[in-house]
């Protein structure tokens, strides 16, 4: 009897590994920047390009940095959720307008709504490289000390917002 149990057990173990592997998302590469200070930037503001915004201006509050672009199709998917989140006022959202043109970006925001406290322009994608951005949209959660605490790759879903992001925001705001 045992001679049948062993191959069966091995087979089931293999099926188990494959099942787990199938459910992992290879696009979600863990960021080495978690728990590291948010890389520095000083970039012109989309709606007021003569003003610059830097990450140190945002210290003392918990905030989201959402990487978006007018050419990014899946940004449209998460955008209504961001607009909704901005209305609740739970956490300020700052936009990193990645490798975009100013006019196109502004046009896009006036069409789809502007959830951002401010958007900054990363026209050549340099700051994107600093943040390890490889697939727009991406969203970083940054704490009061300016440390990255979480990164969401791809469009934010309602589930990710309610089960991951918002509980973390509440926790960080409380601390």
């Amino acid at each position, binding site marked *: 009897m045992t001679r049948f149990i062993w191959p069966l057990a091995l087979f089931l173990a293999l099926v188990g590994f494959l099942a787990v592997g199938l459910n992992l998302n290879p696009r979600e590469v863990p960021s080495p920047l978690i728990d590291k200070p948010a890389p520095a930037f000083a970039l012109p503001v989309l709606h007021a390009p003569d003003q610059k915004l830097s990450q140190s201006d945002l210290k003392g509050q918990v905030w989201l940095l959402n990487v978006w672009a007018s050419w990014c199709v899946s940004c449209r998917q998460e955008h209504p959720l961001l607009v909704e989140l901005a209305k609740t006022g739970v956490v300020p959202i700052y936009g990193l307008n990645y490798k975009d043109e100013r006019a196109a970006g502004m046009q896009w925001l006036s069409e789809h709504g502007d959830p951002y406290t401010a958007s900054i322009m990363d026209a050549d994608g340099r700051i994107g*490289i600093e943040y390890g951005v490889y697939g727009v949209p991406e969203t970083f959660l940054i704490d009061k000390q300016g440390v990255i605490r979480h990164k969401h790759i791809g469009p934010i879903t309602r589930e990710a917002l309610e089960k991951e992001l918002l509980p973390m925001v509440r926790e960080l705001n409380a601390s």
Partner: protein
Amino acid sequence: MLRKFVMGLAMALASLMVHAGEAVPAADDPVLEERVNELGHLLRCLVCQNQTIADSHAELAIDLKNEIREMMVAGKTNQEIIDFMVARYGDFVLYKPQVKSSTWLLWFGPGILLLVGLGALFYKLKRRTRELGAPQLTEEQHRQALELLGQTQGGERK
């Protein structure tokens, strides 16, 4: 003759214009380009994942190649550039994974599996030859066998 000259001039101008359209002066320094390309083969393009940034034409790969080129011009060593990429994109950016405690299973797992398989095979074969080589017969079966074989070695055997 004149027509040929004008044509030639036009083509030369056209080629200049084409060249001016390129974002990066790629052919300026073949040695540098070779270095960029060589290093690009060690780094993974995170957009296409199974391509190196040297092979990929994704926009991010092009940006990263430009970044590498600029860092090289600034006198950075290959290791410094690799560290720069790993600090931003993680170990996954290395096309050939490093050998360290978290990747031991990846590197040595197949070897261990092979050894386990070979061990199981030898164990099985050994048990099989033992079973086949020395069949355990009872006294009665032994006698029957001898009878069937027509040999009566009774005196010697018992």
